[in-house]
């Protein structure tokens, strides 16, 4: 119990004194996870729209697969992306392994199923009359998708924020792709793993509390968008 309390006190200390290493790690965590969520959103929202609006064989099955991938283990994604971007892999020439860009790619892959799946759910909840009205006014498929996404924007933004939360809190991809390089690819979660293994439990607790605080802010935003 004492360790948890000490960790809490240490966290406040580190935050108030703006400890440079903690600030740096936190900023890097936010930058990488925001970028990955943003890139994933650029791909996943239109893709979710296409899946929702097109009729095709195996659509139900595809949605089931996407939903199953919500719980994709982060280390599996890490391994997959590792094999892709390793110098001996198909994308090796881009030298992405052990770089922040590689981590962004890995996390974007990781959160894509959640974003696609929740976008589909969000769009499905929009009143079908809106789609029909747009169609009767002569809208193209793209215009219809954009109209419906606009209508469902709160739920779609919630999907993106949820993806961002998963990217921020995961450790598997960050560790395998980033390599936990100090001052370059070390983020909150990998720093926690390292400090814990080194027995610096108070510092780990402090970093954990910072991570939880960020999650709290995300959740507040999420609730706001959902109008609760």
């Amino acid at each position, binding site marked *: 119990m004492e360790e948890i309390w000490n960790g809490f006190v240490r966290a406040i200390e580190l935050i108030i004194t703006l400890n440079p290493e903690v600030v740096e790690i936190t900023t890097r965590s*936010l*930058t990488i996870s925001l970028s990955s969520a943003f890139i994933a959103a650029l791909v996943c929202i239109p893709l979710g729209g296409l899946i929702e609006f097109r009729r095709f064989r195996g659509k139900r099955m595809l949605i089931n697969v996407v939903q199953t991938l919500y719980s994709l283990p982060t280390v599996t994604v890490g391994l997959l992306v590792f094999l892709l971007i390793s110098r001996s892999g198909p994308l090796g020439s881009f030298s992405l392994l052990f770089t922040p860009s590689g981590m962004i790619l890995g996390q974007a892959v990781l959160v894509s199923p959640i974003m696609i799946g929740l976008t589909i759910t969000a769009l499905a909840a929009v009143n079908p009359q809106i789609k029909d009205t747009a169609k009767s006014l002569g809208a193209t498929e793209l215009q219809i998708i954009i109209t419906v996404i606009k209508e469902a924007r709160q739920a779609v933004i919630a999907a993106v924020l949820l993806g961002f939360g998963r990217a921020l809190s995961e450790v598997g991809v960050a560790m395998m792709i980033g390599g936990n390089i100090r001052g*370059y690819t070390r983020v909150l979660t990998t720093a926690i793993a390292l400090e814990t293994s080194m*027995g610096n439990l108070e510092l780990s607790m402090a970093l954990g509390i910072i991570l939880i605080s960020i999650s709290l802010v995300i959740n507040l935003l999420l609730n706001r968008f959902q109008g609760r």
Partner: protein
Amino acid sequence: MSEKILRATLLLLALAIVCGAAVAADGSRLKLATTTSLQDSGLLDFIKQKFDEKYNVSLDVVSAGTGIAIQYGERGDVDVLMVHDKERELKFIKDGHGLERRCIAYNYFYIVGPKSDPAGIKDMNASAALAVIMEKGKADPSKIMFVSRGDGSGTHAREKLLWKAAGYNYSWVNTSGPWYIESGQGMGATLNMANEKQAYTLTDTSTFMAYQGNLTLVPLVENGADLLNVYVVMAVNPKKHPGVNCELANEFINYLVSDEGQQLIASYGQEKYGQSLFSPAKGNCALIGCSSAECAMPTNASCAMA
């Protein structure tokens, strides 16, 4: 509200891309894969500070067990390796993945355990001590346990050698009962686990000293040639893996074997722990079994690609 956030996100993304591009543009990053013992002991952070400053570059340290570190080298994902498993190092060079092998530092492994030493192994030789731990651990696994790295690291490789020397087949040892625990983690985490369970474990001296403050375990077996632990640095071969930063890797190696580098290694820990954690290789070649060509000599291996 949502527009503001979108704008903020866009701005951050733009920043990230600019930073990413800036990083990708310069060739002054050196990727080093190393063992957890060198990282956990703090030596590499210490060396990084000096090396980065002197050469105006960034040494990126990826720490993993020797097994994985060598694999990173074999895939061409890092520029230079710093490891401690002679057998696999020689194979790495022989297979053409590495340029030259350079011994840079050494220390010893310890068998550490609870102060009360329930198995009574104090001052035995290492393989005899392991045999006793196994025998007594099998009889009473609630009191006598051994925690193994179990992760293919250099320390794990040494443990296997010691079992072999004691006359046991390792695949038989690690399935012989609950007294034998495989942590699957780095040296620091394994020491913490052994400490929690009041078990015995094999550790390198440097990590043990760096962690000693948090541990109640004490060294019980600490001498003998079979516990010698030699750290080696090797550049990845650009002929096999074009794209590695060979020039900077050579500079790093030459920095480590220089008088300044060797002095740095010898002095590390004196301030923080009151004693050195590593001994420099220079001048101790015969003792540590490195040929004079390999022992802390500058490398002039060619970085030519073809």
